[in-house]
């Protein structure tokens, strides 16, 4: 017998009725197509492409839109993900707005170039549809993007496909203001291949929000030739990194500011994090990213003393936003981090980041739950097991569905 109570169905409560968003079209589409729509709406000029499941339908859809003239972009079939990101780097240096997408092995293969792009301080946005490493597994897992969290890219995780579309639009503004590249992550299949109602903004609405890319100093200028990326002596390299660090420190507040502007302009509100039912009465908070959040939202409606902390901006980890979201949480409450990643360490990525964020500020008990690794489903029952285990003599680190 599994431990904990059982639920009979998935999220029982009906989703909130979406209100009408003016200057939008309501469509039913899969998450990958929503990501492609976002790239079109952002007037992306260069798309280097390489197929990999479960990302492929993003680049397929982009190819279709370029081919039929819906999108004025240069689309190139590259020879690998390493080349995809190298081409993205070249075009971004040339001043173009660049978009691409990858997953799993493709992201691992591009690791070297991810580093180069962030160190060149090039703005761009990419979508990663999370899947883990070989032995072959194409299902939902965030070990790919989370293992790239130290490459200098900003990372967002979208709970819904609407959020993915909306975040891509915000990401270009953030990326081009700070000259830091952004990765927007969506879940394999739960989002990439699942149809949802999506509100597609009109082009004018996006244009008002996102101006054309201004070419930064770090662009190829034929009138003022420069050398990009040559051997940098230690004292200069140190200073470059200091400058990057200063801008990384601006991400959290600028991200919130841009999300605020987005809410005013488009009518949909996102925070760096979102607190659900976190207050003096809360004794347990589930910490989630991506679509597991939606499942948890449904489950906790039955538990008045269980809250939810959704992390949307994951890298750089939004320490101030997290502390603010937990400010009314009593000191004897427990945090349960729900992981869809395994990084070869004792603790999963969410718990690692949460500990770093809370260190010196809050001394809350923290429990880690490996829940959805390798695409293993995280249904409401698993969330209920986590709640039960967390409140009934848990281990510090738990693999919740192993038995």
């Amino acid at each position, binding site marked *: 017998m599994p431990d904990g109570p059982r639920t009979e169905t998935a999220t029982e409560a009906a989703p909130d009725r979406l209100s009408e968003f003016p200057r939008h079209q309501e469509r039913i589409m899969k998450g990958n197509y929503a990501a492609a729509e976002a790239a079109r709406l952002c007037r992306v000029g260069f798309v280097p492409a390489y197929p990999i499941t479960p990302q492929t339908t993003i680049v397929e859809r982009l190819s279709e839109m370029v081919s039929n003239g819906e999108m004025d972009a240069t689309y*190139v079939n590259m*020879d690998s993900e390493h080349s995809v990101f190298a*081409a993205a780097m070249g075009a971004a240096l040339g001043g173009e707005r*660049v978009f691409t997408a990858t997953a799993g092995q493709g992201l691992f293969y591009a690791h070297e170039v991810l580093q180069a792009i962030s160190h060149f301080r090039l703005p761009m946005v990419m979508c990663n549809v999370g899947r883990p490493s070989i032995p072959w597994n194409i299902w939902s897992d965030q070990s790919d993007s989370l293992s790239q969290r130290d490459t200098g890219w900003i990372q967002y995780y979208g709970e819904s496909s609407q959020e993915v579309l909306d975040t891509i639009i915000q990401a270009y503004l953030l990326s081009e203001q700070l000259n830091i590249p952004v990765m927007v992550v969506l879940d394999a299949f739960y989002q990439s291949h699942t149809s949802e109602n999506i509100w597609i903004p009109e082009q004018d609405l996006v244009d008002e929000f996102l101006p054309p890319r201004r070419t930064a100093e770090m662009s190829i200028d*034929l009138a003022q030739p420069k050398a990009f990326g*040559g051997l940098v002596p230690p004292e200069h390299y140190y200073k470059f990194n200091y400058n990057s660090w200063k801008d990384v420190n601006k991400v959290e507040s600028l991200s919130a500011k841009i999300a605020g502007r987005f809410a005013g302009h488009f009518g949909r509100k996102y925070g760096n994090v979102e607190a659900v039912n976190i207050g003096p009465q809360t004794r347990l908070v589930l910490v989630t990213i991506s679509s597991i959040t939606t499942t948890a939202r449904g489950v906790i409606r039955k538990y008045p003393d269980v809250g939810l902390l959704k992390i949307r901006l994951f890298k750089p980890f939004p320490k101030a936003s997290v502390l603010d979201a937990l400010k009314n949480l009593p000191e004897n409450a427990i945090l349960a981090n729900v992981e869809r990643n395994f990084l070869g360490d004792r603790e999963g990525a969410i718990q690692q980041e949460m500990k770093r964020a809370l260190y010196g500020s809050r001394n809350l008990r923290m429990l880690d739950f490996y829940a959805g690794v390798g695409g293993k489903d995280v249904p409401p029952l698993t969330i209920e097991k986590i709640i039960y285990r967390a409140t009934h003599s848990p281990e510090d680190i738990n693999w919740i569905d192993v038995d």
Partner: protein
Amino acid sequence: MKPALEFLIKDEKVYSGALSCRGCGWSLLVRHLSSILGENTVYVAPASCFSIISGPYPLNDLKGNIVHTVFAAASATATGVRASLDRQGKEDTTVVILAGDGGTFDIGLQALSGAAARGENILYIVNNNGAYMNTGIQTSTATPYGAVTTTNPNGGFKRTWPKDLMGIIAAHNLPYAATGSLAHLEDLRRKMKKAKDTPGFRLLMIDGPCPPGHKTDPAMSISIGRLAVETRLFPLYEIEQQQYTINYIPEKEVPVTECLKHQGRFRHLFREENYPILEEIQEHTDWYWKQLLSKT
């Protein structure tokens, strides 16, 4: 009769003070190339000696933009640069890759093949000095049979033949590919001009003298390059859509040993027990030349 002066650089596009070794071919090669391409040029350099020669931050010895990029992806980076220039109406800007043999024959081959097959409007220059010289003379698949490098686990020198890059390139059915030598500057400059004026993906492979790597006298760089052509170790030819033209046919049959004997990397071959290897190199060189002749 006026002497031919077509090999003179009239409009210098490289600043003085390049960081190359004495007798290195890179600077001379790039001085000629840049004087022909002009300033409306973007250079892309993967990890290579030239990435160092052209200057550490904040220097740039070129009168043009240069993008230093990761080892495996010069052709992919150049693809992105090309696309951005084209989108901005700068189709007349030349995008040129300056790569070594390691970045071309080995780690950069996939990206090179991709860009060549797509017909990207890019000029690819490979300075083939036959090893990873920037890291200190390690074996590449361009390293000649019999040459000593610092990584030869099988008895101290290379015992496999170099990859036939030009054959691979020809198979991509390019509008223009050619070999060139700094000892034949008029021929080389003509090929650079032709490569500049031909749209599509073009590749020039230049024989790269490297005194520290080849263990040669820096003053002999050009002379040894001339001997490489005379001995047919480095034939001069062009390939246009798989049509071969040999640009220089040596008058006499000069044995390969005349070129090899000046290079310390082949010194061991002149010991009696290694004479059969010298014979193999001569046979292979004759065979390759015959193959070339049969293609013209």
